[in-house]
């Protein structure tokens, strides 16, 4: 069955450093991969989408890579700030089964210490 793996352990980093979060998947060939931010008790907020034929995408301090051979996406936040502390979810869409409804991972909690 399709599986999305994100590190369940919280990532603790110091302010100003680069945070790197990992999303691995199996039994899936997505057409798109998304990253969302979710704060406690609130709805996910869309951050970035990357297509299967794209290797890298950037938006301000965010960078996403997508390696369809390794079946892995890396999400980087450069010059991290305490306000970046949240849970980050990856989601896969399309291709397998044909649905473009996002299938979410459980997310990784990021804690940025001042």
């Amino acid at each position, binding site marked *: 069955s399709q599986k*999305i793996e994100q590190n369940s352990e919280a990532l603790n980093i110091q302010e100003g450093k680069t945070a790197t979060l990992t999303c691995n998947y199996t039994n899936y060939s997505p057409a*798109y991969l*998304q990253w969302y931010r979710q704060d406690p*008790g*609130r*709805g*996910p*907020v*869309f951050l970035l*989408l990357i297509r299967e034929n794209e290797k890298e995408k950037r938006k301000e301090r965010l960078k996403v890579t997508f390696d369809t051979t390794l079946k892995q996406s890396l999400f980087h936040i450069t010059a991290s700030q305490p306000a970046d502390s949240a849970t980050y*979810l990856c989601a896969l*869409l*399309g291709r397998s089964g044909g*649905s*473009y*409804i*996002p*299938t*979410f*991972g*459980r*997310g990784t909690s990021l804690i940025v210490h001042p």
Partner: protein
Amino acid sequence: AAGVIQSPRHLIKEKRETATLKCYPIPRHDTVYWYQQGPGQDPQFLISFYEKMQSDKGSIPDRFSAQQFSDYHSELNMSSLELGDSALYFCASSQRDGYYEQYFGPGTRLTVT
């Protein structure tokens, strides 16, 4: 900018009762999605509507039903509530040609006692 509106924000019900959750999508968004998120879990897709017609169905229990009305707002009706239905319920909306960028509402926290 207008966001997705959900009501109520909190709801407490007893087992076997019914509940109705409402969602008002962003204006001009033609697709609405419903998700259920348990504590520490990923959002689980329940059902979606495109132009008021059901378009995709996920893990929605038979006890639940949903519809989208002519003004594009959507309602999730939940009957014979069980303790396991306690969760955050999110509604999201998008434009079909919007590169699958979904905008989530603040959620309704349902507690079944």
